[in-house]
């Protein structure tokens, strides 16, 4: 589904992503872990075209999307939930949701379908998103990403600033989405333990390079990796 080959990104003289290769298949979750500044967010931003790649390729179902404009990449079925959630606080909850699927026109999911996943949002559908709590905003931004019925979901630190009970719920939901909708999920997380608990594969980045690419169990049992990068 999503194939990243030797992707490299530079910010001026700084190399943020350094020849990263990975694959995420339909219905599977790949967790991207690593310390701050390891290049996790840059990797996602390069995949969606927010930052230009210096070298390498990104392909969706075989189609090379590397040099495309963000809007075009999104229209190939990639949904990116950015760090800090990117809820547009001036719009209402329902408007945020509708916005997610406008380019899909009739094929977009109805808000009702999203409310079925997140009943909390339905109660607040006509309120401006600025009134939502952090957890509700996270639900809204994930829900909004699903409206366009994407095939690839990129999640940037969904657990940031959330209560443990919510983190567990969100992780469980992501797993369920991958299983039921066949989404290919690339999950960037600081919270390695939660991320690995739902992932099919774990990748550890350091200074933009892949230093480990293994099954979650193997990663979690590697004393050296855990100590150096994962923090548990």
């Amino acid at each position, binding site marked *: 589904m999503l194939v990243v080959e030797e992707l490299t990104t530079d910010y001026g003289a700084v190399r943020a992503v350094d020849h990263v290769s990975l694959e995420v298949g339909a219905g599977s979750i790949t967790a991207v872990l*690593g310390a701050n500044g390891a290049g996790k967010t840059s990797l996602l931003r390069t995949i969606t075209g927010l930052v230009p790649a210096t070298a390498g390729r990104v392909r969706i179902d075989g189609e090379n999307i590397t040099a495309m404009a963000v809007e075009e990449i999104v229209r190939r079925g990639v949904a990116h939930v950015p760090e800090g959630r990117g809820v547009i606080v001036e719009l209402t909850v329902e408007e945020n949701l509708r916005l997610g699927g406008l380019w899909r026109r009739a094929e977009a999911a109805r808000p009702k379908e999203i409310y079925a996943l997140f009943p909390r949002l339905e109660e607040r559908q006509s309120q401006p998103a600025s009134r939502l709590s*952090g*957890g509700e905003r996270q639900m809204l931004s994930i829900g909004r990403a699903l409206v366009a019925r994407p095939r690839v979901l990129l999640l940037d630190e969904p657990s940031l600033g959330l*209560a443990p009970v919510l983190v567990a719920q969100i992780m469980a939901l992501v797993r369920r989405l991958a299983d039921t909708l066949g989404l290919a999920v690339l999950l960037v997380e600081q919270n390695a*333990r939660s991320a690995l*608990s739902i992932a099919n594969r774990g990748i550890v980045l350091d200074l933009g390079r892949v230093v480990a690419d293994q099954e*979650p169990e193997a990663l*979690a049992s590697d004393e050296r990796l855990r100590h150096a990068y994962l*923090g*548990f």
Partner: protein
Amino acid sequence: MEPRELARGTGLSVHEITVSFAGITALEHVSVDVAPGEVLGVIGPNGAGKTTLFNVICGFVAPQSGALRWRGEPLGRIRPDRLAALRIARTLQGVGLFPHLTVLENVTVGATRFRRAGLGSALLGLPRSDRDERALRERARAALAQLGCENIDERLPGTLPYAVQKRVALARALVCEPELLLLDEPAGGLDARELSDLAKLVASLGSSVAVMLVEHHMDFVTSVCDRVVVLDFGRVIADDVPRAIQQDPHVLEAYLGRDADTGDGLGAEARATDARG
């Protein structure tokens, strides 16, 4: 229970605070005390009122009822810009540094309460103003050194790693020599190594500083806090030492999640590691 008795006289005492916005109650009869030398964690689900509590203490939000006492004196109408003089400092969620000021300038702004020279001597460039400036900069350098942030005086915050920015923000709060330090999600966005550094730092603050921190990172809260207050729907549902909090059924229900105790193999294993360490 000992620290709570102490708090009455010397630390911060929040008494029966109620806040509502547009008919929605954000805090309901909330009482919290924190004593010098104590590290108090405030946890709770998103939207439980933790940040509102901070905003009440800082004067950004006026409570409908209730009272605050600080060092034994009642705090009347609080103005944010007078907190530093009362020796109360707060860090903001994220970083909250001034993006176009250098690191040294950022921290020097935090030392504003030590400024003695007036506008007149600044406009005339009098030596008095220069001396004052040098003194403030010395304080700022000392605060940066205390946090291990040397040789970045002239850098802009945006050019530094996130964790270093958070340290600078902490230095800016500490430079006014606070007796109450309010930390809003200090661990947010930090990785494992940075977290353990931060924990050491908080532990080293000493017996004269009361610390109140809002945080979601439970491992961090458990390791640095002497006591934890749990808010849910604007009410205090628990107030106890961390170990007791983790077993409190209400807290498990509202915040930690029931699964936290059983969990899958991975989580259980991780907790076992924590216990060993």
